[in-house]
């Protein structure tokens, strides 16, 4: 199957379809294409329209002009918090991927019974509210929490080690929320990798580790890219977990946006903050795709 797909890709690449004809192929709609209409309409109403309204309000509410954006840059707070937000999200993404990759790999080689168990472990937290999980983590990690008191009773440490209200606290809390979003796509990709390719590499004289790094890892990258992207984008919007587990310096932009919408009621300013977040994210992704071929990694297409 993989070989066939590869051949098709090879042929496609070398039959020289020009950019224009590719575009036409993308846009040509046959009767089946109509099936996509409900989704398109849905996205139009619940995504595109609100996005346009948000953009528009950021320039018009309370007065027409750039006042909202000027206010963002007038105080060092917002730029700093925006920077924080990206820093934390990147760290969370990195840690999540480091943990998710071996876990997903283990899932692919485990026996079916164990695989189900591992899948369950990843999925169960999904069904619990994030707020409840964050509170549970507080009970576990605080100075007077389970970890610290146990370690003190065992004589491992003298005084409590500060685990929450710090950067580690935020990363810890967010990683456990993000983990399923990274494990699942990576696992899904790894599962489709033909193991015989590894055997072939070894048969051609590579060491097992070499075959893993040179054959398995590159083939699993689409899953890593998808998982990383999901984690990163999601993490940008977190604010409850950082507010509960983080220190005062770990405020994320989401918390300030919610504050503007729910208590200060400056919708235009909130819209401007959200727009800043969106634009910066898009710029970062554009930058990233310059260095990593994101499209190829995500779509498996050149």
């Amino acid at each position, binding site marked *: 199957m993989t070989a066939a797909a590869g051949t098709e890709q090879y042929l496609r690449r070398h039959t020289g379809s020009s950019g224009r004809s590719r575009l036409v192929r993308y846009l040509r*709609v*046959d*009767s089946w*294409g*109509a099936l996509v*209409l*409900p989704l398109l*309409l849905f996205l139009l*109403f619940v995504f595109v329209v609100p996005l346009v309204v948000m953009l528009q309000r950021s320039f018009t509410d309370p007065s027409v002009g750039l006042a909202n954006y000027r206010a963002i840059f007038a*105080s*060092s*707070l917002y730029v*700093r*918090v925006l920077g*924080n937000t990206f820093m934390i999200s990147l760290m969370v993404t990195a840690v999540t991927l480091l943990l998710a990759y071996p876990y997903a790999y283990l899932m692919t080689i485990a026996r079916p019974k164990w695989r189900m168990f591992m899948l369950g472990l990843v999925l169960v937290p999904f069904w619990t509210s994030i707020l409840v999980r964050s*509170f549970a983590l*507080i009970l576990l990690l*605080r*100075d*007077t*929490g389970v970890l610290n008191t146990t370690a003190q009773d065992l004589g491992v440490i003298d005084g409590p080690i500060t685990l929450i*209200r710090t950067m580690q606290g935020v990363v810890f809390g967010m990683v456990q929320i993000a983990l399923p979003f990274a494990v699942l796509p990576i696992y899904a990709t790894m599962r489709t990798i033909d193991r015989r390719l590894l055997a072939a590499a070894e048969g051609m004289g590579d060491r097992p580790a070499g075959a893993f790094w040179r054959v398995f890892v590159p083939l699993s990258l689409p899953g890593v890219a998808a998982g990383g992207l999901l984690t990163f984008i999601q993490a940008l919007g977190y604010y409850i977990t950082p*507010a*509960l587990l983080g220190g*005062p*310096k770990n*405020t994320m932009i989401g918390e*300030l946006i919610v*504050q503007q*919408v*729910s*208590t*200060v*009621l*400056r*919708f235009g300013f909130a819209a401007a903050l959200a727009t800043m977040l969106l634009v910066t994210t898009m710029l970062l992704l554009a930058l990233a795709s310059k260095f990593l071929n994101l499209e190829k990694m995500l779509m498996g297409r050149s």
Partner: protein
Amino acid sequence: MSMKKLVAVAAAAAAATALSACGGGSSDDADSLAVTMWGGGAQDAHVKTYFDPWAKDKGVSIKQDSPTDYAKIQAQVTSKKVSWGVVEVEPNFANSACAKGWLTKLPQEVIDKAKSSGVSEEQITECGIPNLQYTFSIAYNTDKFAGSHPKTWAEFFDTKKFPGKRGFWKYATGGIFEAALLADGVAADDLYPLDIDRAFKKLDTIKKDIVWYDTGDQQTQLVASGEAPLVQAWNGRITQAAEEGQPVANEYGENLVSYDQVVIPKGYSNTKLATEWMMWFLDNQQAQADDSALSGYGPASAEAVKLVPAAKRKDLAGDPNVSDKSAATIDYVYWAKNYDTVTEKLNGWIAQ
């Protein structure tokens, strides 16, 4: 599928979406009152004690919603589709929303009734009457401070004499600035307008010991676990936790009195019913007392406190045990004007 057909399908789908969007408007039946409060056990108590009995007498029904959301009030009023009738809000919002014309100005008879029924005058405004009172006071862990505990804000800020972390609400109107200024020696009568810069200077001295909380559950958790053995807390939460057997207690020295108000968003179809309820509520001290016994919040009227069973009374805002020690009442007229700017300053100070 031909292009024509495709367009037809798209048009039909769009029309259907538009139709269903329009059909969502609620038609209020004439004999119900929509009540929106902050939710949880407190709302259950309020509805049970001072909405349901009235509704039963009157032969109307109560429609509940929660929690209060200022953005929704604004959206309802500006789109002229008001579905919330009586809404419990913070008084600074009541003041600024009243000035913006989002709330119904209360009829004179309601204002007069409030004044004549033992409600503190400073808590009555053009658009709102108070429905409950509470205090921002010192909550302490009784295990950590078994011998002596801070009794003033100056002692609360004294981390040498009373070591340990301090919990504050991450919220500009949560009493933190008032406490800091009192701790710094400002006389209670001279608190307002608040000297925010001076308050920050005082707060700087204990900044590394501050733990911020966002929710009521967090504050009891902080004190009870000893994580932050001293917290500027809402007294009702601490009373409740103490009753559950947790090692916490309220110290009412220099407590700051706060209150919630009930308001009527402008354009609500049953405004008359809402003001009728207000009249009943102000007249009905027993209902207020019943609510206090159940919710732990002090009643709006000083007279009603006397009707609360003695065992429950000593921890209620409005009872002499608490009110004799009050330093001040939060000035929500000040906060209506300054909430936005001080919030921004507080965000900046916290993140620094």
